[in-house]
């Protein structure tokens, strides 16, 4: 499933439409150094961290998209940086794990 298709899944809205990428895995975590310690590529990263550092880490780890969970708002700065870096940011009211499950189901991706 591409991040674009993920954006069209019920319960998700687009905060920033970045470069099109394919989602191959999911990761739920809020601690940035834990995310950077994993070898993740093409990951859909579900988190509550809605600040500029989230985009820096998503860029470094080459995440397929960021999903901001629990309806937590993104800072303006975060979305500006996401736009510059071509990172897709989605929003949902779901919790991190539920968001990952919903997208995996929609995309037919094994968890």
């Amino acid at each position: 499933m591409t991040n674009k298709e993920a954006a069209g899944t019920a319960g998700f809205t687009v905060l920033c439409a970045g470069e099109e990428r394919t989602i191959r895995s999911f990761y739920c975590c809020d601690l940035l150094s834990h995310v950077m310690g994993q070898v993740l590529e093409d990951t859909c990263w579900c988190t509550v961290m809605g600040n500029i550092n989230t985009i820096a880490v998503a860029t470094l780890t080459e995440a397929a998209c960021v999903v901001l969970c629990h309806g937590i708002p993104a800072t303006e700065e975060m979305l500006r940086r996401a736009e510059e870096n071509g990172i897709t940011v989605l929003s949902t009211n779901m919790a991190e794990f539920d968001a990952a499950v919903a997208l995996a189901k929609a995309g037919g991706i094994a968890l």
Partner: protein
Amino acid sequence: MNEDIKLSYTVPGDDFTRAGEASAHCKATLKKLGVDPAAIRRVAIALYEGEINLAIHAGGGNIDVTIGDDVCTMHLYDKGPGIPDIPLAMSEGYSTAPDEIRSLGFGAGMGLPNMKKYADTFEISSVVGEGTDIVMTVNI
């Protein structure tokens, strides 16, 4: 044998919007040079962790990067408070990050371990009251 490329950065203290500029710039430079993406990623992550530490723990600092034919050397140094117990600071999960920093997603105590993990060589020295010095290399 090409001439080494030297890049220098100043990392401001407590400005997390700017911390990340060195790693982003270095990453772009390596990309232009056609370096293997996996090596670029290791450089970029190790450097980002180092930059954030300079901003959070040292009130800012400096980074010199040298890109040679087959190795990227990163020297990070600051005049911050120094690290009293380096083995403790290097252990996974140890962090002195204050609450407001933790609320931004930092403070897992994984930064130094990540730097060591992603670098091919990693050396750290520190004097309390004087500062901290890190040299790490990634084969490219």
